[in-house]
């Protein structure tokens, strides 16, 4: 025993602590490597990174429209130009909107939508689910009945109703999706918390005198959050899909640089051969949803070995 203490003395504090930090870095690297070892995940990640880069670099890729860059620029001299023209790489809509501009700046709109909706829904869902699962009893009963009410209405129709009542604005789409999607997280989180809190290590933490809040933060939350993280990653994609649906049917401001709006704008031309105005933004929605779903799948395989598919 003395030798052990001696060994610890030999290492001064910083060495010992830094070794812990190094171990942590190494583990993170290992985790990253195992996530990336799957080619489909890797493809998804590249896709997602490309889309994110596009959103972030939008002002560099194309000249921002003034005064509001989120609005489509209108070139009334070039209406329904096919793709490939020097000024309009992906052509224009029949109101002179540049499809390329819409595709690039639409990724910004989508990023804003997905980040806002996911962060709101995850926060609300995790709080509600945790409180319900951790406290149990009557609190659980009341919260879950509220969740049931929300679940009893089909997602899309519910979101549609909210957005329609609030009036056509992209902001209201965000709000509508946030109101609809949090229940899913609440349910996932509640189930997880109930499973995790039955573990002996939660009792063990109580035995050493931890407070309930500490037990939640240290024992329950880290062990329960994984499925939420996976679901949130996938929803980063799905929400853009649903959001595009809502703006397609006219719940966003007209002329917004948004993929759903653009698809709607171009759909009239499809039958007369002007395919490009709808196709490119539609493709973007597809790629966005695909990328985040592939990454989410890959994360689930690594983080939750029980659902691992045989590869």
């Amino acid at each position: 025993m003395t030798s052990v203490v001696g060994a610890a003395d030999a290492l001064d504090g910083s060495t010992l602590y830094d070794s812990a930090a190094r171990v942590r870095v190494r583990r993170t690297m290992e985790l990253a490597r195992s996530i990336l070892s799957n080619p489909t995940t890797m493809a998804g990640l590249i896709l997602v990174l490309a889309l994110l880069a596009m959103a972030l670099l939008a002002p560099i890729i194309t000249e921002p429209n003034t005064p509001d860059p989120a609005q489509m620029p209108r070139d009334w001299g070039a209406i329904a130009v096919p793709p490939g023209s020097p000024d309009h790489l992906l052509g224009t809509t029949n109101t002179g909107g540049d499809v390329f501009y819409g595709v690039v700046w639409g990724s910004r709109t989508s990023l804003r939508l997905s980040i806002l909706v996911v962060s709101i829904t995850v926060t609300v869902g995790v709080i509600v689910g945790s409180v319900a699962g951790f406290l149990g009893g009557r609190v659980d009963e009341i919260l879950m009945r509220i969740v049931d009410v929300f679940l009893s209405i089909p997602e899309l129709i519910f979101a549609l109703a909210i957005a329609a009542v609030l009036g056509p604005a992209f902001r209201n789409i965000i709000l509508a999706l946030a109101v609809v999607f949090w229940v899913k997280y609440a349910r996932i989180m509640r189930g997880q918390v109930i499973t995790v809190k039955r573990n002996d290590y939660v009792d063990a933490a109580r035995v050493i005198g931890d407070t309930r809040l500490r037990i939640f933060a240290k024992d329950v939350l880290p062990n329960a959050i994984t499925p939420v993280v996976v679901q949130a990653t996938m929803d980063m994609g799905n929400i853009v899909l649903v959001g595009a649906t809502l703006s397609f049917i006219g719940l966003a401001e007209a002329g917004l640089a948004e993929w759903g709006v653009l698809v709607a704008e171009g759909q009239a031309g499809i039958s007369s051969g002007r395919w490009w105005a709808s196709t490119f933004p539609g493709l973007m929605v597809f790629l966005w949803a695909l990328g985040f779903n592939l990454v989410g799948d890959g994360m689930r395989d690594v983080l939750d070995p029980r659902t691992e598919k045989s590869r």
Partner: protein
Amino acid sequence: MTASSSVDVAAGEPRTDPKPVVAVNNLRVHFQVKAGVVEAVDGVNFELLEGETLGLVGETGCGKSVTARSFLGLVPSPPALPPQGTIDYRHRNGGGVVDLLTLDSEAMGDIRGNHIAMIFQDPGKALNPALTVRDQLGEVFLIHRSADVLEGAGFGADDTGLGASLIRRAARLKSGIIERLLLALPPLRNRRNRLRASADRLIMEALADTQIPNPANILDRYPHELSGGMKQRVMIAQALACNPDVLIADEPTTALDVTVQARIIELISQLQRRHNTSVLYISHDLSLVRRVCDRIAVMYAGRIVEIGPADQLFARPKHPYTRGLLAAIPSLASRAGELEAIEGTVPELIDPEPGCRFADRCRHSTEMCLSAEPNLVDVDVGHAVSCFAYAPITGSDQTPPTVADPAPAAASPSPAPARATDDRTAS
């Protein structure tokens, strides 16, 4: 009620005898389920003496774990109804007596960890998979022994200034997010690292105490990277970190293989001798309990049916159930095929019938056993049994059961006499 019973417990003992640390009086823990009330623990009485090892044995579902978990308020409620009776805990160093069942959460928080600790059955489930060994054990020291941690890091109590108070808060795990950021910055970083190193030293001492060969190597491991035996040692180190007066070991070796079992048991008893800890040893493994325990309490269907010194209980078991259990232990002396099983299964504890709960399975039972519940009665010094064969109801016209005294192997093979079972099902 609490006061009077605890005074009896404290005053009644002569000085030389070990004093009871915990006295369980008429403990009842019932569970409300849809089908009725499960009387999982129904009138349990025993004392845990200072420095002794008391074995609590019985079949699965007899209420062993619920009894032990009641000590620490770990019985989930609901479904458990508020427990009845008292569990009187006496602080070792001249402190007063408290009833563990009536403590508020703050007082219970002090008892947990500081005074009563617990080792869990399955080390694989009792360690948080998201924490390294360092984090898992470190917090125990930071919560309960922050003074030692500060001292080990060379911080005196008279240090003043913002830095010192931040460090002191960190040593009690009270730092908020902003404080943690401040501590990570260069002016304080060095002191924080000294604090961490000091905690690490305590962790490694605790691990070395449990015979882990190279504690520094496992500090950064996660539970899934450790073997079962290692995990159990980490658990033990965690449980013993604060030198508890009472250690509850809930089948601490059931999940381990036999070779590791022996070492873990030896380890617990070594640590017990060093700190004069009382151990409540829960097990269904009788041969193991015999080796480890000073006294044994046999539980059946939520009650203690027999309690006594280990040697005596094994040499001269009194209760038919204890005899049945002992007869079911395989030994080298008995030939194959001679193992006796106790017929039947543990009764449903949902709204149980009156009478001795073992009566249905007991080959000696009579009407008396079905009409009333026997109480624990002393049959020898420190050896009590609850069976009408030893203490029939006085003045009753029903015949008490007779249990032949010889060793269990020679117990009479006669079939159970015709009993009132039919009457019961009819009624």
